[in-house]
Every structure is written in structure tokens, then in C-alpha cells.
């Protein structure tokens, strides 16, 4: 078992997938290097026919993946920063997410749209989006957003093998996270949440980088005798409602941490969904901890101020007790 950085784990899953399936190709800007290293050096191994550097033309390469996938390839598309999805949004929302449905189920579209996502140190408003809520609302896109290298590996394996367009968002604040990843290839089924820490008193559903924050907090609160269960949904579409509902039915308390804006975000969705499923178990108002509804500011203290912090999360947990 080797320790891998988060994006190294992603890279390894791509490499393994390219070995096992010749139809897997990589497209994107500078993918010989790979903005976050997820495709670096693959070109030496798989050659320029399968590792395709694209011009800066997101709409056409995001859309080409649809045509390519419908005709025999399994494209892994590196969109680089998730903010750039907007440039290709028609191709993602009106085409990739629609073609199978509109065709009455004729086509499979095995595509992974990968991007680094979220603030990564004052990259400002056009390089810091966390657009997963938009993708969740689309209908037709699976959405994956892991929190550990081991999950990233297993989920990327499953994403590449999935017959549908999968938006795989790699939280850039996990870049420096390094932890063990089993040597033998494995996959993690899309739609399975992971209880990162079992607990009895409060359920925290935490997305991507906020999982670590939640785990930290859980450790802190343990000493006070507050037992926190931390659930990482890992995939947002499909969403593992059962695991979350079961937990809330046990704890009666729900806090959702989401590194994204609030209005119509994933946190609100999870709360509304649990309201529907587990209302009678709820002992207190579910809380959400998110960014405020602002673009991501550049200045370091301002950028820091929008983040989901342990203190915010603690306040939310206490509000449920």
C-alpha cells in the first residue's frame, strides 16, 4: 500500500483504465502535463493518438466527447478548472446530459468530465467555482466529488467504466492530501456514501474538503462526550439517501457542510431530502454550513472568510444539540 497524493490517485486510475481498455482516451489542454498532474506522462506510455492535447476550445472538445463516446470511445476529458465548464455548458447540459434520454435510451455515453474545483489559494472568481449543484440539477450527469486519495482512485475507476457522462470534481484544496491507496486496482460503486466516522449524537454530511474539517471537529467534540457521525456522500448523483437517512434516524440531528454557495446548493438539497425521508426523527432544525452567496474573492483574508471552517461547523453542530 503506497501513499499517494489526491491527484496522483486520480492519475493512477486513469493509467490503469487506459491499460485495461484501449478505447479510453484523454482530451484536454496540455494533457501531456495535466494541470493537476492527473494525466502527466501518460503520453509517453499511450502516445498522442490516445492522449490528445486540445486547443483552447472547450465547447468543441467537451462536445466532441459526446460524438466520440457515441461511436466507440471512452473519453476522459480534462476541463482543467471547473469554472471553465461554463464555456462549454451547452455541450454539457443540452447535449451530453440529454442525448441518451432524447434517443429513448439508444446511446451510452461513457465520458468522464474531470476538473479541479474550488478555491486553491487566491485564484479568484473565475477559477474557484464549485459548480456541483448545477450538475446535480441537470439530470443526465453523474457527479462525483471525493475527499480522499483512496476514494478518488476507486471512484475514478468506476467513473471511467460507467456508461454515462460523469462529472468528476477534484477538490483543489485536497492537493496536498496524501494517504494510503491499496495497490491492487478496485472500484467504488457510484452512489455509495461512506461513513467516515461512526457516531451517535449528530450526523454531519460533509462534501469533499469539508470531510476533513468535519472529522477534525468530531475528534474535538469527542472529548466533550459529543459523538459525531461523519458521512461523505462521495457521489452527489446518484446520491446515497439511505445511508444518510439511516444515520439521521439514529442521531436525530443533521448538519450539512458544503464548500459552495448556499442558494440552491447541495446542502439545501440534502436537508430538503432528509426532511422528506426522516422528518419525524429530526430533533432539531437541520443546519447547513456553506459559503455565503458571493463570487470567490481574491484577497487572501476574504477568500478565507468564505470557507467552511471548523468553527462554523461547530456552531452548526451545537445549534442542533
Amino acid at each position, binding site marked *: 500500500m503506497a501513499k499517494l497524493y489526491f491527484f496522483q490517485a486520480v492519475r493512477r486510475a486513469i493509467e490503469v483504465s487506459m491499460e485495461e481498455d484501449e*478505447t479510453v*482516451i484523454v482530451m484536454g489542454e496540455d494533457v501531456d502535463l495535466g494541470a493537476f498532474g492527473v494525466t502527466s506522462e501518460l503520453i509517453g506510455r499511450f502516445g498522442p*493518438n*490516445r492522449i*490528445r492535447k*486540445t*486547443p483552447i*476550445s472547450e*465547447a*468543441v*472538445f*467537451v*462536445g*466532441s*466527447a*459526446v*460524438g*466520440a*463516446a*457515441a*461511436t*466507440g*470511445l471512452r*473519453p476522459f476529458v480534462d476541463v482543467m478548472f471547473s469554472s471553465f465548464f461554463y464555456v462549454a455548458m*451547452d*455541450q454539457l447540459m*443540452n*447535449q451530453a446530459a440529454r*442525448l*441518451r*434520454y*432524447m*434517443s*429513448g*435510451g*439508444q*446511446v*451510452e*455515453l461513457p465520458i468522464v468530465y474531470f476538473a479541479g474545483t474550488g478555491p486553491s489559494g487566491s485564484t479568484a472568481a473565475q477559477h474557484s467555482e464549485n459548480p456541483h449543484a448545477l450538475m446535480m440539477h441537470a*439530470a*443526465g450527469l*453523474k457527479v462525483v466529488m471525493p475527499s480522499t486519495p483512496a476514494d478518488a482512485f476507486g471512484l475514478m475507476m468506476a467513473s471511467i*467504466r*460507467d*456508461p*454515462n457522462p460523469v462529472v468528476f470534481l477534484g477538490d483543489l484544496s485536497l492537493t496536498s492530501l496524501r494517504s494510503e491507496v491499496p495497490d491492487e486496482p478496485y472500484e467504488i460503486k457510484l452512489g455509495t456514501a461512506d461513513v467516515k466516522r461512526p457516531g451517535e449524537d449528530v450526523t454531519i454530511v460533509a462534501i469533499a474538503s469539508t470531510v476533513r474539517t468535519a472529522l477534525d471537529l468530531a475528534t474535538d467534540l469527542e472529548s466533550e462526550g459529543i459523538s459525531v457521525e461523519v458521512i461523505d456522500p462521495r457521489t452527489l448523483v446518484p446520491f446515497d439517501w439511505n445511508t444518510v437517512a439511516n444515520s439521521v434516524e439514529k442521531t436525530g440531528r443533521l448538519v450539512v457542510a458544503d464548500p459552495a454557495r448556499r442558494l440552491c446548493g447541495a446542502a439545501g438539497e440534502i436537508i430538503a431530502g432528509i426532511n422528506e425521508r426522516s422528518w419525524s426523527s429530526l430533533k432539531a432544525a437541520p443546519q447547513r454550513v456553506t459559503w455565503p452567496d458571493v463570487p470567490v474573492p481574491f484577497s487572501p483574508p476574504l477568500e478565507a472568510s468564505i470557507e467552511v471552517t471548523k468553527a462554523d461547523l461547530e456552531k452548526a453542530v451545537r445549534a442542533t444539540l
Partner: protein
Amino acid sequence: MIEDLSSKTSVDESTMLDLYRQLVRIRSFEEKVQELHKLGKLPGFVHVCIGEEAIAVGTCSVLTTRDHITSTHRGHGHMIAKGADVGRMYAEIFGRVDGYCRGKGGSMHIIDTKLGILGANGIVGGGIPMATGAGLSEVVLGGNGVSVCFFGDGAANQGVLFEALNLASIWKLPVIYICESNNFMEYTPTADLTAGHIYERSIPFGVPGIEVDGNDVLAVRKVVQEAVDRARRGEGPTLIEAVTYRIADHAEGESAFLDAYRPDSDIEQWRDRDPISRFRTRLLSDGIDEGVLDEIVQEERARVEAGVEFAEASPFPSEEETLDHVFAVRGA
């Protein structure tokens, strides 16, 4: 002036008759669509290609089912020319379960992957990347197929076309971009809002740009054949502007809420250049018996009637199908 290629083209008689049959099939199909629309039988938007059939037919006559096409909101002709069954097409346009997409797509979204039809498209320009990607598959997988991207003159102002021309050029993709230059984008003459000539727009990308008489099925066939040959030889994409005219309304039923936006004389003038009558005249002057042609017309009209019957007999999909087909199930 666009060169007269038709006179220079020789094609064997059975192909000639097949081209005629295809033209007539599409025309009959579309006239029936108009009729059905007037009767209030068709849901949603319907755009017919009357007067523009030669582009679909000339193009698809040099393709095989292994080749792919993407199409537009005005796509019935492309589908039929690519081999689609008129009954299943009507069923789709009616929203019935025997339609190509089980009624989920409708007129603007007919898809049949088995025939290489990657889909009509409701987004103007939306299919351009898809066609480009189908070309990419050929290159990566070492296939010998080509991909044909039909788009309108209005779509020629969508940026994605230029991104595609660049990508197809540098990757030498076997894609033929065919602009159906029918003078209009909805209710506006394209030239009013379109700088220069569309067929020249590929030149800076090193992609041949060719203008052709889109109402001359043999001329279209010839230039597309050349482009397809180039593509199959690995020499990359071509842009073809096929000049035609939208005789029909933009969308069926528009006169209910629109005043006339073009002189009737324009329409009349283009009726004189109707691709089907022109081709018929050519066939007759080639010595083909009028009876043979009339029989084709009868057969195709009958086919269309039978198609409508098939469609009307088909049930609507059951409501449960609403929830199907969002995601494919792995291994299913």
C-alpha cells in the same frame, strides 16, 4: 456563379433512380407533415426541408451506414436519406412509442445510432462538436468511416463551428461540414447578419471551402464524394456550402402569428429551381421513361401513407417511461 457540375457528372441509371426516389420520398414525407400539422395532429415545433432535399440526398448517397451524420432542427430529410424508415419517423414526430426515440425526442431529436444518425438537434450549431467527435473515433480507432455534419447558414455564426474547423484541421478528422445555406435564419435573411461568404470561412484553417448548387442533387453528390474521398484518405475535413432556399416556412404554423417577411416572388423564383423537378427533367432528357418516375412517385406516396398509418396505430409510451433512459445501467 456556382459552377454547373451536374452536366459533368455521370452516374449509373439505377443510382439515378434511387436518388430520385429518395428526393420524392422526402418531399412526400414533408408535404404530409405539413398536412398533418394543419390538421393539428403534430405536437411541438416542426421544420420541413421542402426545396432543400437535394442536399440530404446527394450527400447521403455517398455514405454507408458505417458513416455518421449529425443533423439539425430541420432534419427529416437527412434521416430519410440516411435510411430512416418513414413509419418510425412519423411515430416519433407523433410522440409514439414506436418512434425512433420511443417518442421522447420528437421532430427535433430523431436519432438512430444503428443507421449512423447521431441526432437532429434543437440547439442551432449544437451538433457540430458531436460530428467532430464521431470523426475523432474514426481516427483513434483506425476506422475508415466519415462523419457528416449538417448545419444551417444561421448556425454558421455559432463560434463552435470555427472551433470545430480548427480541431478537425489539426487532427485531420474525416468530417464534412455541410452548410445548408437556405437564405434564412428563422425570419431574417442570413446575409443581413452574416459577413462574407460562409464557404470561405474554412480557408484560414487550411480547410477547403466549396460552394455548390444545393438544388442540384448530382452536383452535391459530386462535391461530397470528393470530400468523402479526401476524408477517407486521411486528408482531413471539408466545408461545403450548399446554396438553396427555404421554400417552406421556418416552422409549420408560423403564419398564424407572423406577417409575411419575404416577397412571394422570391419563393416563386426558387420554386422554378426546385431540385426535384430539375432532376426529373434531367432524367427524362437522359431517356428515362416517365412511367418509371411516376411509379416511383406513387410508391413513395403510398409509403408515406402507410407510414402515417403505422404511426397513428402506435400507442403513446406509458407514463412510467418518463423516468427511464436518464442513465444507462452498467452491464445492462
